């Protein structure tokens, strides 16, 4: 009797927390369809803010910058992180535990410290040598740095799950290193690599602070554009572009959940 009351209370609490989590996103989505330019009431359904998005050159530009940044950095980080994760796995018997500090550092460092140190470093290097001019290039460098550890950890944890005897089997069968890499390691890692790429991509698209401090004048991304629009005084177009970004995240989450569901109960290879 008492137990059931506790369960009911918990369920009510759960729905309240869900409401708390989704209300701020919901309000942005709702007002992106508002037909008038106000935040206090919803006057009627309209798509006019979406229409004006397409004609706003600054937003389209920011969209392309975000996309370029995310695709380029994720590709490089996936390759570099996988190689690192593989190295950590192969030589895990050596006392390389201290390496994990370098890998944790980008993950846990507050992003403001991260952005500021890269910014001051880039500025100093630029003053001294003329290299590393703030812009999309420095942003790509900064993004790769926080993506690599996530990829390496994903690849490493997938390799550790694998039966080590399989690895020795490839040696017993005289597989050349490239054959081992191509026919054995890459297929083993395939699903881990796909999720690593998408994780890197999301991390890049979601990042604001690090991009903000390493950006140049012509490399505005969508989050930076939204930020400066909020600071200047909001137009309802911001609701529309935010809604599109929210929709993208939810689509990605749904797809990744569906893929996980579809995969048969994990086969221990």
């Amino acid at each position, binding site marked *: 009797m008492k137990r059931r009351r506790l369960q009911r209370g*918990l369920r009510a609490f759960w729905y309240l927390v869900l409401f708390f989590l989704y209300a701020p996103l919901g309000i942005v989505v709702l007002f992106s369809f508002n037909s008038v330019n106000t935040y206090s009431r919803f006057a009627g359904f309209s798509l006019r803010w979406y229409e004006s998005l397409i004609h706003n050159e600054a937003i389209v530009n920011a969209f392309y910058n975000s996309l370029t940044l995310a695709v380029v950095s994720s590709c490089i980080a996936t390759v570099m992180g996988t190689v690192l994760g593989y190295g950590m796995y192969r030589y895990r018997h050596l006392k390389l535990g201290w390496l994990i500090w370098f890998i944790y550092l980008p993950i846990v460092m507050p992003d403001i410290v991260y952005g500021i*140190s*890269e910014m001051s470093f880039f500025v100093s290097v630029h003053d001294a040598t003329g290299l590393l001019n703030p812009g999309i290039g420095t942003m790509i460098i900064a993004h790769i740095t926080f993506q690599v550890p996530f990829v390496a950890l994903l690849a490493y944890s997938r390799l550790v799950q694998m039966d080590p005897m399989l690895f020795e089997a490839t040696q017993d069968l005289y597989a050349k290193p490239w054959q081992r890499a191509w026919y054995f390691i890459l297929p083993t890692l395939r699903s881990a690599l796909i999720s690593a790429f998408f994780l890197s991509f999301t991390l890049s698209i979601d990042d604001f602070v690090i991009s903000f401090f390493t950006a140049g004048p012509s490399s505005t991304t969508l989050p930076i554009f*939204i930020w400066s629009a*909020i600071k200047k005084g909001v137009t309802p177009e911001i609701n529309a572009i935010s809604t599109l970004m929210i929709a993208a995240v939810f689509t990605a989450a749904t797809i990744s959940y569906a893929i996980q569901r579809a995969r048969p109960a994990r086969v221990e290879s």
Partner: protein
Amino acid sequence: MHKGRRSRQAQRHWQQAAHMLGTIAPGIVWIVFFLVLPSAYLISVSFMTNGPYGLPQMPLTLQAFSQLLGFGFLGWSPGNLYTVLRSLWQTLIATGFVIALAYPVAYYISTQPAGRRPLMLLFVVVPSWTNQVIRAFGWMNLLAPDTPLSNLAGALGLVPDQMGLFPSNFAVVLGLTYNFLPFMVLPLYAAFEKMDPEIVEAARDLYATPVGVFRHAVLPQTLPGLMAGTVLVSIPAFGQYVIPQLLGGGKSMMLGNLVARQFAEASNWPLGAAGALIMILATLGGLLVLRRLGRRLGGGKEVVL
């Protein structure tokens, strides 16, 4: 050198070393060059003198740290010190709220049928995958003047009429709580999943009060998850930049905003770097806690977010 006498084994060792360098070095060197080196540079800046254009100069001093404590060339003023203390205070309150919200949620999820749990966890986590600027913007819309929430607060006399709930310290704490809730739910859920329900059952059978059950049966078993969650929530909350900037006005500045200002308008790199150094130290302390927890919990397995 006696090249011909080099044995095949030595050659294999050499090859292996090259292979190891080839796999581990690129990633680590990249992180060292583009993150460790820049942070080391930033730390060194915090011990330098502030130059005429805000750029760091020799000689080395502790000037930046005394400025952080409020000692300026106009005498002592508490502004900077208040900012540091406010960051601590707001982080503390927000972490408390997060714990209060996360415990029932994590427990509730762990009592559900196994097939539903991943989806429920996903529901908790997905909002945190959206951009944090957009999330803060959503709260700005909810807390603005002349919205249901603000009118309610006005009717209750909590805020002056016609005023919104933001910018305020309240809005900042709310934003922090919102932002970091998933970081607490996940480790707590992991702890609840491993919890032995029979101990809780036994406490109940012995007529422990609900508080007693929690204190003596639930808390000890979920403590590692709670500690991991506290580190994951409080360290990034302490260094938050976006939320205080958007949801708090000038009077709700936190350490992250103070640091950023020194590199932009205020132009005092050493002072900014000194603030950043505090955050770096807090981060390293948090890492140590996580490592120790990881060793104690998973038998050598690392705690990964």
